[in-house]
């Protein structure tokens, strides 16, 4: 194939998924753009935002890839069965690892900003916000990933090509939306700096 042929094929294959995640990214951006008051109220939270959002993609993208592989290998059935030990293991591992990464990000941001002499919210506030938002978005994303992968597979789609765009799109939206909810809840509970 010529260079132009390869380029056209690659361009057309990528455009729909990228456009979908673009919409998700813009919605997430609008929520983030409207969070100025919360971001100002919790100094250091803005620094944690990329890590918190990326964790969604890294952890739940990996959960989706694992479920796709498991379906292809016949290790799991494409039906939601809460008693299936493999499905439970994969979902629980995603949640545990996601929460660990959120906690590590919050602690790292606190330590680095403190070392730099910047203003930063109390450690407990940052950790509480990142764990709560990690938990809420983790539950929502697990549900989305499981349903999309299983439904897609039952309808004859390759779940591998569904997982990436779905996780990046919903991950950004849920990530920012639950971050906003978590900041409000933690501030209301008296965790303000």
């Amino acid at each position, binding site marked *: *194939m010529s*260079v*132009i*042929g*390869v*380029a*056209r*094929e*690659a*361009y057309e294959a*990528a*455009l729909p*998924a*990228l*456009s979908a*995640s*673009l919409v998700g*990214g*813009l919605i*997430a*951006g*609008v929520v*983030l*753009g*409207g969070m*100025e008051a919360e*971001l*100002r109220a919790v100094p*250091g939270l*803005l*620094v*944690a*935002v*990329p*890590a918190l959002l*990326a*964790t969604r*993609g*890294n*952890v739940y993208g990996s959960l989706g890839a*694992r479920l796709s592989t*498991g379906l292809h290998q016949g*290790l799991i059935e494409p039906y939601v069965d809460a008693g299936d030990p493999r499905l439970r*293991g*994969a979902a*629980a*591992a*995603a949640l*545990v*690892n996601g929460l*660990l*990464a959120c906690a*590590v990000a919050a602690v*790292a*941001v606190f330590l*680095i*900003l403190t070392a730099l002499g910047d203003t930063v919210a109390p450690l407990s506030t940052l950790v509480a916000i990142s764990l709560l938002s990690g938990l809420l978005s983790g539950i929502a994303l697990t549900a989305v990933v499981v349903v999309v992968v299983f439904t897609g597979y039952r309808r004859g789609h390759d779940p591998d090509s569904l997982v*990436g765009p779905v996780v*990046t799109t919903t991950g*950004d939206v849920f990530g920012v939306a639950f971050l906003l909810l978590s900041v409000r809840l933690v501030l209301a509970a008296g965790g303000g700096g």
Partner: protein
Amino acid sequence: MTADWSVRGITRAMLPVLLVMTMVEVGSGLVLGGFEAQLYQYPTLLVLVPVTIGTAGNLGSILASRLSTAFHLGTFAFEPTDETLAGNAVATVALAVTLFPVVGAGAWLLRLLLGGVQLTVGTVVWISLLSGVVLAVLAVVLTILATYGAYRFGLDPDDVVIPVVTNTCDVLGVVVLFAVVQVTL
């Protein structure tokens, strides 16, 4: 992918890379924190942040997975004249040129609807387009280097290149956006 589906087994495979990537993302957050004042002054820029870093990471991960597949199929050579390499590089830049003006216009329009635009639509589209093209070029260079590195060290590019490229593009997304804002405003 391991056949071990226990929480412990999955964690052992996932956690080390996840924590390294989390620290890389904290680095990106520190850059973001560095232009906090401008982000609060022009909230349209804050709207651009998730979509810019997300699209940059997606461009990198799509290119990485296409090169990995071509590499596994043996249809790919590390030469500037290779059609797969050149074609995919061209497509990545073309996708950036198509999508980033839409990102800029979308961000501006959404802020307008919510009642708070300080920057002109031309400025926001320009910031978005320039960031996007620079990011696409960086994503191409980074993906080729990472795929070549994986190949030289005998690693499976699927395991290594996609996480490295996606997360590095996240950081570069913030750095490039910051640099373009400094030059433009």
